[in-house]
């Protein structure tokens, strides 16, 4: 799994490790350490979509936070477009953030209820002229199937699926190369899930954006991703195309995940 090709891939994650220190039980005992990530490596090319599956506690969300440079790794590197994100000075990192954006699970918690949609969507934009700002917001809203006039409304005026579209518009406005999506459809109803999944696919074709797609739902990952990595205890235990992984899984953990996935079919 050390197929890192610096300079060629959009995202190169190299032996990424993250330990969390828990509080000591007593003054003299050594602190407990949780090894949330234990040497994770992978690469992601432009316009591709990599799914990360695994149970809670497997390290999926820690990986997302490190790739987003929201936390610093204990060891290892995350390189986007050849730059080591965790080695960048704060100002450069802020500028680099336009290339990678995130969509969160909860479309209710991730939008500020007191701001208008236009302001929420424009937030990641650097200082630009009001005219350009307005146009970019309208363009982003249009890309996710909302109307330009929606910019003047507040989040509570939208349904869950529309709020997730707003969150995606906010991620798109900087024209990123990579979107990290952490369980982006888990909180949505089935019929709305399909609309958002189709939108994500469509945006990939139109804008060539790459996804790091984190989900516990194997069927969703199977539908959206070109490649899937299975995580357990902070390690990638198996990796492959969904065609292979979901039909001929080699690792016992992958097999158990597939066996446990509920199927709405009768064999």
């Amino acid at each position, binding site marked *: 799994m050390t197929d890192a090709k610096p300079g060629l891939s959009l995202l190169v994650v190299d032996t990424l490790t993250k330990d969390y220190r828990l509080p000591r039980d007593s003054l003299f005992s050594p602190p407990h350490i949780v090894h949330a990530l234990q040497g994770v490596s992978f690469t992601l090319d432009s316009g591709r979509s990599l799914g990360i599956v695994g*149970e*809670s506690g497997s390290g999926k969300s820690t990986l997302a936070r490190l790739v987003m440079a929201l936390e610093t790794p204990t060891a290892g590197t995350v390189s986007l477009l050849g730059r080591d994100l965790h080695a960048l000075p704060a100002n450069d990192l802020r500028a680099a953030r336009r290339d990678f954006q995130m969509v969160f699970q909860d479309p209710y918690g991730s939008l500020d209820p007191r701001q208008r949609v236009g302001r929420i969507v424009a937030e990641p934009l650097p200082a630009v002229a009001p005219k350009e700002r307005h146009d970019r917001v309208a363009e982003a809203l249009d890309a996710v199937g909302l109307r330009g006039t929606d910019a003047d409304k507040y989040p509570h005026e939208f*349904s*869950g*699926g*529309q709020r997730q579209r707003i969150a995606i518009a906010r991620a798109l406005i900087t024209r990123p190369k990579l979107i990290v999506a952490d369980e982006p459809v888990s909180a949505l*109803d*089935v*019929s*709305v*899930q*399909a*609309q958002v*999944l*189709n939108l994500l*696919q*469509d945006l990939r074709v139109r804008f060539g954006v790459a996804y790091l797609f984190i989900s*516990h*739902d*194997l*069927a*969703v990952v*199977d*539908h959206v991703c070109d490649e899937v990595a299975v995580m357990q205890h902070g390690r990638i235990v198996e990796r492959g195309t*969904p*065609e292979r992984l*979901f*039909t001929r899984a080699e690792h016992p953990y992958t097999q*158990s*995940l*597939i066996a*446990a*996935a*509920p*199927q*709405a*079919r*009768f064999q």
Partner: protein
Amino acid sequence: MNTLLDVRDLRVRLNTARGPADALRGVSFALAKGETLGIIGESGCGKSMTALALMGLLPDGAVTSGSIRFDGDELVGADDARLCALRGRRIGMIFQEPMTALNPLHTVGTQVAEPLRHHLGMNKAEARAEALRLLERVRLPQAAQRLDAYPHQLSGGQRQRVMIAAALACGPELLIADEPTTALDVSIQREILDLIAELVSERGMGLLLISHDLGVMAHTVQRVMVMYGGTVAERGPTRAVFERLAHPYTRGLFRARPQLGLSRGRPLETIAGRVPELVDMPRGCPFADRCHRVVEACREMPPAFSVGANHEARCFNMEPAP
């Protein structure tokens, strides 16, 4: 078969900020002892409202009409004292999020023992011993040590086991489970569903399982009802409904769901539009405005047409057999 639960023409009207709205528009179903029934639907379809009506836990100001008979007793209009005597004793309930349903300030043992002391009049020592037996039955690991643990010290799956133990404490005849596995990991989901199924058949309870997850339904219940806009769109034996998908909403719901190995690369079929707010629900078939098979007649509420044995759908223009 002796009927445990008989619901007829259940209607619930809620007061919303935008005026009165019908959350349930004539729901009827029956459940025999030992039978398992699933309610499928998306947010706002009335599935949780049905469960709350059964438990007498509707929000203030809700107006209920119709009939809910539990073992022959009418529950609509029953006073709180009578409902309290039923809840937790003859009707057990498991909720979606065990972290909010359990009291964070009380130990697990106390919470499982509470219905035993309240309903069955056990003393503290008896109730504690019985609580331990129940926690062992739901296979809570190290149950004896965990009697004195607090909910936050347990994992999500373990908390759901505690909820099940508390719901089963008084040996209820009906178990209502509202999205019992939605907050859990996939592999634990299966364990919890298997546990519920095992306990239901062991004790001959009736089970009303509410879920939006079609896969969960396929493996757990004998019959299903698909709800939309406060009405029952389609109902029947689980296998018959899943294979026939007669109502356009049922079929839309199945097509919209990605399935392992089936839909790769192609866009998913979606249902146009979104669930209207209760206040805006059309007068006739609630699905009419989103339906691709809508006809003029749909402006009136369709009656239930027979599709097969014990299988019916409320639709004037059903999908052809696949």
